[in-house]
């Protein structure tokens, strides 16, 4: 099938524009482009029936909630209109902007997000390069199989494993006491939360994260390595000047995607790991929103926070995409 000559388009985002080498099929497209909607519907109505349910799904479950964000600007009373009762402007936004606790969770989110990005983004690249240096295909296969495994675990399981290993009689404390230290109740100490969270992210995501890079590595032309070897380049220079530039488009796309999901930092995992004793570092915007919005039923206030968070995410991904396109010519769309 289509492989070998393939360029890595990275994650299939922004699928609208087909890659240039498929332009061979363009003539019918031009023809279709001019058709009126009535003609299109008459000729392809069966195809359009395929669209009905999925589009309905997107409208109801994706776009209706987006419209529902309107209650961030309206007073919402449970049992009354689902779109709120009366306009209150930016009342709820001012409410959280003036709230000290909001800023605590905001900075917790930023710090946790940055730490995760700084550590969990580069490690898969390193691991992929290391796997790529292996000669034994068998050993490579085994390492891959093992390192992908945590990806398939439910977050509930991951959180359970983390809590057990960091518990007072857990493995980490067994090591600490073996070296003469005192056992620490890690999950009750705010200082440890970030380390534990990021470590568990590394454990769960790094192996699986290598897949796209390994795919990209196979598309690098072997002749480049041959030529560089004749020019006297050593392994390190080859890695630096051929391998890394070769996987750069993949790196950029994944970086942009990571930046886009940066504010949402593993909501489910944080929710499962945190407890009131470690809120000072372990509470993030999404978990705070869950507590005030769902548990305390302050729907409008929670929605305002959620909208704020989503907008930051959107701005981040657009900015990163724009910057990447300008600087290295790789982008999502």
């Amino acid at each position, binding site marked *: 099938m289509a492989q070998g000559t393939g360029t890595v*388009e990275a*994650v*299939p*985002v*922004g*699928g609208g524009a087909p890659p240039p080498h498929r332009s061979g099929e363009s003539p019918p497209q031009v023809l279709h482009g001019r058709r009126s*909607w009535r003609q299109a519907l008459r000729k*392809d109505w*069966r*195809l*359009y029936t395929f*669209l009905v*349910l*999925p*589009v309905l799904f997107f409208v109801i479950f994706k*776009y209706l909630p987006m419209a*529902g*964000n309107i*209650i961030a600007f309206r007073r919402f009373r449970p049992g009354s209109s*689902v779109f709120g009762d009366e306009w209150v402007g930016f009342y709820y936004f001012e409410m959280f902007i003036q709230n000290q606790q909001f800023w605590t969770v905001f900075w917790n989110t930023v710090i946790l997000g940055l730490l995760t990005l700084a550590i969990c983004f580069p490690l898969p690249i390193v691991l992929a390069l*290391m796997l790529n*240096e*292996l000669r034994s295909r068998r050993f490579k296969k085994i*390492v*891959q199989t*093992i390192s992908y*495994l*945590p990806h*398939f*675990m439910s977050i*509930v*399981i991951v959180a*359970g*494993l983390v*809590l*057990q*290993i960091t518990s*007072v*009689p857990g*493995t980490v404390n067994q090591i600490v*006491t073996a070296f003469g230290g005192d*056992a620490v109740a890690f999950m*009750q100490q705010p200082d440890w939360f970030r380390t534990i969270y990021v470590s568990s992210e590394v*454990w769960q995501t790094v*192996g699986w994260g290598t897949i*796209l890079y390994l*795919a990209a590595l196979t598309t690098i032309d*072997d002749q480049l*390595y*041959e030529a560089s070897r004749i020019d006297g380049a050593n*392994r390190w220079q080859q890695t630096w000047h051929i391998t890394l530039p070769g996987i750069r488009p993949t790196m950029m796309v994944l970086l942009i995607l990571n930046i886009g999901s940066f504010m949402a930092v593993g909501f489910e995992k944080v929710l*499962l790991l945190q*407890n009131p004793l470690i809120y000072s570092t372990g509470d993030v915007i*999404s978990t705070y*929103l869950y507590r005030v*919005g*769902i548990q305390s039923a302050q729907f409008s206030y929670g*929605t305002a926070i959620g*909208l704020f968070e*989503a907008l930051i995410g959107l701005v981040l991904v657009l900015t990163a995409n724009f910057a990447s396109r300008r600087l290295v010519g790789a982008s999502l769309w």
Partner: protein
Amino acid sequence: MVIETPTPDLAAVRTEPSTIRESTGYRTFRVANVVVLLVVCAVTLYPFVNLVAKAFSSEGFIAAGEVNVLPRGFNLETFKVVLGDSLFWTNYRNTVVYTVVGTVISMALTTTFAYALSRRELKGRTFFIGIAVFTMFFSGGLIPNYILVADLLGMRNSMWAIVVPTAISVFNLLVMKSFFENFPTELEEAAAIDGLTTYGIFFRIVLPLSKAVLATMTLFYAVSQWNSWFSAFLYLDQKEMFPVTVYLRNLIAAATNPGVGSGAAEAVQIGANIQSVTMLLTVLPIICFYPFIQRYFVSGVMLGSVKG
């Protein structure tokens, strides 16, 4: 040779100067590389080994911090307790039901949508792709979703709240779309000439020839539904309806949250063994199937990433 090529051609070997040998530095690197990767494997597997050890140990040894790789004070009682809990079985059955129903719905919607989007003659194609892709970067947020599902649609305490709102994953949709785009058009054209309608082409030509991608996507959806817990946690109040992940979550929360009930320290100790057993029983199906299905997942990700 430094670079391994699958089929080393003779010319290349001949022109290769015999002086090209591995430098000592590179040999050291290779050894270190293997060692580091072995450590990575050990660290990745350790939590599971520890889990199994704890599941078969006595609570006393766990609480004393003496269980790591091997079970201490071999104990099967807890398995009997957990397996004897009818709620556990009810919740386990729920997980199976939700996974099957959710996967069927997801596949039906994703396949038809992806196929339609892959057809170039579809007028408004860019627009329809756009409405899907946009939701990857902006979404309605937790509370509007909650109001919609729980209040507006009245799905609280119903299976539909768990399986429907997450039915289409845009990532999977795009992977499938790019697969269908690479489908040889000649086949479909020939079928159309033979008088098959779009439905006929889709069900009798395209789907039977897409078994590999369909299997991959089914597995993607099934695993994510099997592992999911938050929708159930959010929308279900009745214990009998929980999936096993929520059962497990409640067990862990009850055992580890300080200040919940009296004798919290004791609860942690008792919990550790029961938790391990429950966790083990929950991951068991995935661990058992994993070696066989792993390659489908990898190929699924590749499908989406490498276009040629």
